[in-house]
């Protein structure tokens, strides 16, 4: 860390003399690195969503009976819903700590656009809390007897759908950060926004499962993701400004 | 009249629908009135307390 600061200092002297501001890429990398260090320090917490997903997945066969065909038929949708539910608790605390300790005030005055920092935070959040869920998908798929040919489609779907959900969740999390309590409120706010995502994701998975074309819903998801990458950070930044105002 | 009330056999669907409509809108209409009454009552209490407080300090000032 010290050496980074040292090496940064080198460029900054030049920056200062010419009046050039700290660059955006460097800021994003610094934020990513910080969030990774923080996640690593709390790595125990990162396992909780995984554990949750495994437990819930394991409950389904008990509740529905071990009929492999039944499980195979519902596996895709069930796993999708489990991933969405497992993502929820972490979404709530996306900005809360930073608001409470004053870090957001520092974000607000940083030379970089607030939306860029918010987008970087979304990326860090997705990589640390959601990616592990996607990585264990083959295991969960096996528990649910998911047909092997569906697994790649499921994973691609999740790779498109979960960033979208995290982007939407970031806006809501920023909105709720200034509030007294959130918890169930975040789920209530997320539901309407998540409906289209879940519909298209489930459509792609169902298509793959029944041998029908699944490219169209994936394309819609991808288009929505591109749109959200542009718009959601802006909304998130506006929400963070409201949260910091007091 | 009874024929009309029967709604061609659909009375158990039609009239509850109208009842829901009226009940929900009645709630919507009267809820703010109740809230308003609570607000004015609280405010009146606050103003009364303020007045007694001011009267007391004025008396205290007069006596010193």
């Amino acid at each position, binding site marked *: 860390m010290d050496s980074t600061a040292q090496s940064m200092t080198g460029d900054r002297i030049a920056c200062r003399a010419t009046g050039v501001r700290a660059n955006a890429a460097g800021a994003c990398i610094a934020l990513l690195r910080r969030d990774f260090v923080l996640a690593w320090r709390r790595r125990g917490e990162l396992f909780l969503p995984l554990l949750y997903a495994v437990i819930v997945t394991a409950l389904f066969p008990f509740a529905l009976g071990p009929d492999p065909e039944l499980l195979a038929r519902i596996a895709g949708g069930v796993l999708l819903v489990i991933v969405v539910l497992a993502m929820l608790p972490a979404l709530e605390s996306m900005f809360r700590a930073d608001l409470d300790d004053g870090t957001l005030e520092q974000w607000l005055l940083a030379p970089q656009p607030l939306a860029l920092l918010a987008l970087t935070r979304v990326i860090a959040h997705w990589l640390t809390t959601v990616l592990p869920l996607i990585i264990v998908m083959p295991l969960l798929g096996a528990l649910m007897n998911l047909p092997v040919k569906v697994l790649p489609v499921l994973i691609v779907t999740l790779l498109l759908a979960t960033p979208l959900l995290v982007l939407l969740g970031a806006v809501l999390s920023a909105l709720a950060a200034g509030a007294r309590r959130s918890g169930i409120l975040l789920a*209530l706010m997320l539901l309407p926004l998540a*409906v289209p995502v879940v519909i298209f994701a489930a459509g792609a998975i169902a298509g793959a499962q029944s041998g029908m074309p699944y490219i169209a819903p994936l394309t819609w998801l991808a288009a929505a993701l591109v749109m959200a990458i542009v718009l959601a950070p802006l*909304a998130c930044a506006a929400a963070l400004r409201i949260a910091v105002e007091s | 009249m009874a024929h009309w009330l029967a709604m061609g056999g659909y009375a158990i*669907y*039609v009239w509850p629908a109208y009842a*829901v*409509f009226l009940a*929900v809108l009645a709630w919507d209409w009267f809820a703010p009135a109740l809230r308003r009454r609570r607000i004015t009552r609280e405010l009146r209490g606050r103003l009364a307390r303020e007045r007694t407080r001011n009267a007391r300090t004025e008396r205290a000032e007069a006596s010193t």
Partner: protein
Amino acid sequence: MSRSYLPHWMHWLGSPPNFYRFAGTLRPWLMALALASAAIGLYGGLVLAPPDYQQGDAYRIIFIHVPSAWMSLFIYATMAVAGLIALVWRVKLAEVIAMECAPTGAAFTFITLATGSLWGKPMWGTWWTWDARLTSELVLLFLYLGVIGLCNAFEDRRRGARAASLLALVGIVNLPIVHYSVQWWNTLHQGTTVDFLDPARSSIAAPMLWPLLVMALATHLYFFASILGRARTGLLSLESGKQWVRTLVDGQPAPTMEAPT
């Protein structure tokens, strides 16, 4: 803030005491008109209009169901516009109106769902179906509840109003997407779709159409009367420290000065 380029009357009306008085005068008239037109509309719909040749008398739910559905969307749009004004210009009145729209909008959305369910049971044989329109309406109800919940979760009501306004704006981008996606989803799972007798079909006969339109007028008038009353109450609680509220509440001039310390 720079509100000076707004028309003069808007500026005047934006002042809470002015709005309070103006709304107080207008409200009874609007409500009287709403009740009168509702009486005409209901008489036309429940008495004059003939039974439907397919649905018998069950279709008479249309006279409240469809106006409520229209209102649920109209109020959402109103809320979003007021929310936008609240966010951009920070007009207090716009914040109040945006937030007071939400309960009434939720009420109409709930009515739409409940009456739709009561209509659906005899027509489709089921209380609920995941039809595109019903599902969108349900999502709309959740949007309203989210706005109400977010607004109330804030200690500072004005900040809560602005946060909830932003949520309302996000929701208005979301609504068409929801509607489209639900339609797509519904055609995908064709088995669950029930033959929906389109209630707003344009081929509706004139004796049925005019009561429907009069009822739509009545609900709009009701909404305007209701939002004026709600906004009055909202302003009263938000401005409770102000002189005009104090004079209004107890008729006597309030103490001009805090107790000297």
